[in-house]
């Protein structure tokens, strides 16, 4: 399947029911770009309406879980006349295929775009083992 980048974005995608919450807010799948360079994996997620307090990135074993909570916008004295998009939570889970250096993981979020850098773990240098007589 060719990987063509389209300029026309699709509507917000909702994941399957497993990610359903106890709260009655929809859960969306954020559009994500994943690129791998020589020494790191870069994950970039589109999460509008999410700031650094509402985002949560966890890495457990080799599973990367990204969640973001959108601010619930409502305006006093105004009625919602037309709803083009809903607001809710973002959630996406990835399984990493390479070993990652956990101490140097960096994540930044600005203007609704989350960027995670996962540096690949360096291979352990060869160790010389001393052999005792006896």
């Amino acid at each position, binding site marked *: 399947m060719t*990987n063509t*980048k*389209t*300029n*026309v*974005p*699709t*509507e917000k*995608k909702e994941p399957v029911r497993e990610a359903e919450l106890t709260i009655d807010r929809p859960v969306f799948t954020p*559009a*994500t*770009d*994943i*690129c*791998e*360079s*020589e020494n790191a994996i*870069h994950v*970039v997620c*589109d*999460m*509008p*309406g*999410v*700031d650094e307090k509402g985002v949560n990135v966890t890495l457990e074993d080799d599973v990367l879980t990204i969640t973001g909570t959108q*601010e619930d*916008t409502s*305006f006093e*004295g*105004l*009625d*919602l*006349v*037309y*709803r*083009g*998009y809903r607001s809710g939570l973002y959630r996406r889970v990835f399984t990493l295929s390479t070993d990652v250096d956990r101490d140097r993981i960096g994540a930044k979020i600005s*203007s*609704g*775009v989350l*960027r995670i850098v996962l540096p690949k773990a360096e291979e352990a240098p060869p160790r010389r083992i001393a052999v005792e007589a006896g």
Partner: protein
Amino acid sequence: MTDLMMRSRAWDPFWDLQREMNRLFTGVAAPAETFPTVNVWTSRDQVVVTAELPGVDAKALDVSVHGDALTLKGERPEDTAVESAVCHRAERWSGRFSRTIRLPFAVENGQVKAKCRNGVLTVTLPRAESSKPRQVAIVSE
């Protein structure tokens, strides 16, 4: 005659085919005909339009108002932050967009405010004085 046809659906091969075709087309997300998607809030004297535009620089965004039409124009370039990379996934959009929204009433051009926070654009448009409803005094003769 129709009752008979309805009941015989179970073995009708064309019904199966039609059902498969229907299933093929549901669940396919149609691309948004107009981008960006907006939410519109109104009161008697104000309109507020919000749109989700993650990663769009305020400088690359062009918000203009003319009468009762609000135009959102902008561009998000492709992310070139990572060089010499292998792309596993490319789902984020890039490029130019332009959308004109018709507002419920004419707005005061000079008092329109727009702010972009965390990738969400909020445009506040106060109603134009000339378009506010006026009470008409009825003279009884």
